[in-house]
């Protein structure tokens, strides 16, 4: 009995080794599995941020007073805002935004300083290019904080009382509210999903198309062992890819890792098992490699976009939220973020782990059933 187990394990190792050799034998294939996740991690790590560090803006200062200049100096000195134009009349305002020369225009009315001096509240108007309304809202929130700093200084200089209610802000887990801290841990799963799933979906489909799968079936391998032999290499590739992205996040972007590696990798194993299970099921369903390819594309697209990576899951209509229940990436992203930023342990993550385990169990069972029952 024990020797049976031992042989089974030996057979699985042998098959895994053969599969790994098949995948990694030539240099181009090795590169195509290792380089993309790291390069994408680097490039997207820089690109995928909602934070702004370069906001071109224009000024329509109809007051041209000491106070208005002081306010604008605050914008210019922030390091974020670059003044691209000084407008003379409100008529120019439309043009500068339409042509995308400026992301926003700060308009200061004629009576700005007079109202300030009289102790009445003055108004600064901000007109922003809403073609990307998220960018526009972020930029105006930066203007708000510059104005708040101006207000504080003005009150101090003129010994005015503070506002009746002061709001003090604090953020947990990401004190400076940097989107990169949120995006990169999410990419650990996203960037590994595509190739892991495709690799698995292709591997069986290719053998089936070339007729070598039938040969495998007549060897002493049991269906379970063949499945394991197909699943393990893809999972190993996935783990290596995930490690690449993790290293980019830690060593290059220096995002502090709050949790334990053990927890993260346990979560990743569950995720990869589910992803590979879906891949195997696809390749069991598909008749040809082309179909396997198309099916995996059709799943990867919604999986990667509707995963909570860039837009929150809670914003989706409830019907779509149900659909995302079968999306392994959704759980992987949640796990990676919470382990990475909040440092939570496995006990908190059960809500993510059991759906992954369920997806893996269902897809792997279905795939192995189909492999044994679809022999022509």
């Amino acid at each position: 009995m024990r020797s049976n187990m031992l042989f089974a394990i030996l057979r699985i190792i042998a098959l895994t080794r053969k599969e790994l050799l098949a995948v990694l034998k030539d240099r181009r294939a090795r590169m195509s599995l290792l380089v993309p996740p790291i390069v994408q991690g680097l490039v997207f790590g820089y690109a995928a941020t909602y934070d702004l560090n370069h906001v071109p803006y224009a000024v329509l200062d109809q007051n041209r007073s000491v106070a208005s200049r002081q306010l604008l100096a605050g914008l210019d000195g922030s390091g974020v805002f670059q003044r691209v134009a000084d407008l003379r009349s409100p008529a120019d305002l439309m043009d500068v935004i339409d042509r995308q020369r400026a992301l926003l225009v700060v308009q200061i009315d004629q009576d700005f300083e007079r109202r300030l001096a009289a102790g009445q509240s003055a108004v600064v108007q901000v007109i922003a290019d809403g073609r990307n309304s998220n960018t526009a809202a972020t930029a105006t929130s930066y203007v708000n904080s510059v104005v708040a700093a101006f207000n504080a200084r003005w009150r101090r200089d003129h010994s005015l009382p503070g506002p009746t209610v002061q709001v003090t802000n604090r953020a947990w887990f990401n004190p400076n509210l940097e989107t990169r801290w949120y995006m990169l841990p999410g990419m650990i799963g996203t960037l590994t999903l595509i190739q892991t799933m495709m690799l698995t979906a292709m591997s069986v489909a290719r053998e089936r198309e070339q007729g070598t799968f039938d040969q495998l079936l007549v060897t002493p391998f049991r269906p379970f062992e063949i499945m394991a032999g197909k699943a393990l290499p893809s999972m190993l590739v996935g783990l290596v890819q995930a490690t690449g992205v993790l290293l980019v996040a830690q060593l290059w972007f220096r995002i502090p890792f709050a949790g334990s590696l053990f927890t993260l990798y346990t979560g990743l194993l569950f995720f990869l098992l589910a992803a590979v299970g879906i891949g195997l099921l696809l390749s069991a369903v598909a008749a040809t490699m082309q179909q396997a390819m198309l099916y995996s594309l059709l799943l990867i697209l919604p999986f990667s976009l509707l995963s909570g990576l860039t837009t929150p899951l809670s914003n989706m209509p409830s019907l779509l939220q149900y659909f995302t229940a079968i999306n392994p990436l959704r759980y992987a992203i949640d796990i990676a973020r919470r382990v990475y930023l909040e440092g939570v342990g496995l006990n908190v993550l059960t809500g993510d782990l059991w759906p992954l385990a369920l997806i893996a169990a269902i897809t792997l069972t279905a795939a192995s059933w189909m492999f044994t029952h679809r022999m022509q």
Partner: protein
Amino acid sequence: MTSASQSAPGRYSAIERLRAKARRVRALIVKESRQMLRDPSSVAIGIVLPVILILLFGFGLSLDVKNVPLAVVLEDSSYDAGELIGSFQLSSYFRPQITHSMPAAQALMIEGHVDGIVRIPQDFARRVSAGDAEIQVLVHGGDANRARIIQGYVAGAVATWSARQAAEGKAVVAEPVGVQTRLWFNDANDSHYFLVPGLIVLVMTLIGGLLTAMVMAREWERGTLEALFVTPVRSDEILLGKTIPYFLLGMIGLLLCVLSAKYLFHVPLRGTFTVLLAASTLYVLVALGIGLLISSWVKNQLVASQLTMLATFMPAFMLSGFLFDLRSMPTAVRLITYGLPARYYVALLQTVFLAGDVWWVLIPNAAVLATMAVLLALGSRAATRKQLS
């Protein structure tokens, strides 16, 4: 060339040659169209897939922050504090949940039930009368973008409360300078306005590239292209014959996307439809060209479609300005974005849909796309030389 038209027998005039060329291209187009329509997978990719994707993503992606679950720690049971909470309860941005201790609220946040905590301390009412009250706001910083918006909304709710207090004649000191914001082209601050045009770019990038990548690579793989090589058709004619039917298919997919943007997601189309169509024509050509180039380069369906996916979809998602602001990317990354056709089409679509026909934006972007289309056509012609490997 007039002398050529009266040249020796056996040589063809330019007009005749052109006519023969047109005949060959037409024959190829007919053949390709038949093949395309009989193959359910290309119709599925060209028409069904774009519609499914735009529906799925159009409904699924949203950056609007509404109904934020918020824990309000009410340590002060005074009238003033109640009033302040009222302004949170009335706002459609928040779904406040009253708790009476900070640890309870923190537990809610750690478990992920609320995205933020607003704490109104014990002495709130007393300090309001003294003129230096404070409330504390704690947000879950994980999703930084959302967190920042929540902070802004909380500040807004407090400002609303202050204004109401002042209107009731209470002694409330306002900020010296207030900011009044106007969001042009998107007054309602609806994130669908920019997400849906961006999604059209994403979908068309994928469809265009995939259509030609799969088809050309299939011909290379099966060796049917070599069979075509022994006929009188030339490589540019083969390419034309392939591109035109798939171009039409891609345009149908695109039209369906535009229609759903306008009528389903209610994105206003402020520019003219002709401009939209012209810009899209250019982009579909570019996307098809990328697929052609990739497939004639790798000559293998699987590698071709994987490369198309890696080279077009993810970059179009991350680097096109569809979600993330291009100006804030570091120079090296920004240089990469200049090589991406999706970047120009995003600028074109967001402008035509939301701002109107702003020629200053449209012409440069369209010019780049046109150049790219020409370069890709030349490149794929060079790669499809009649030669056997």
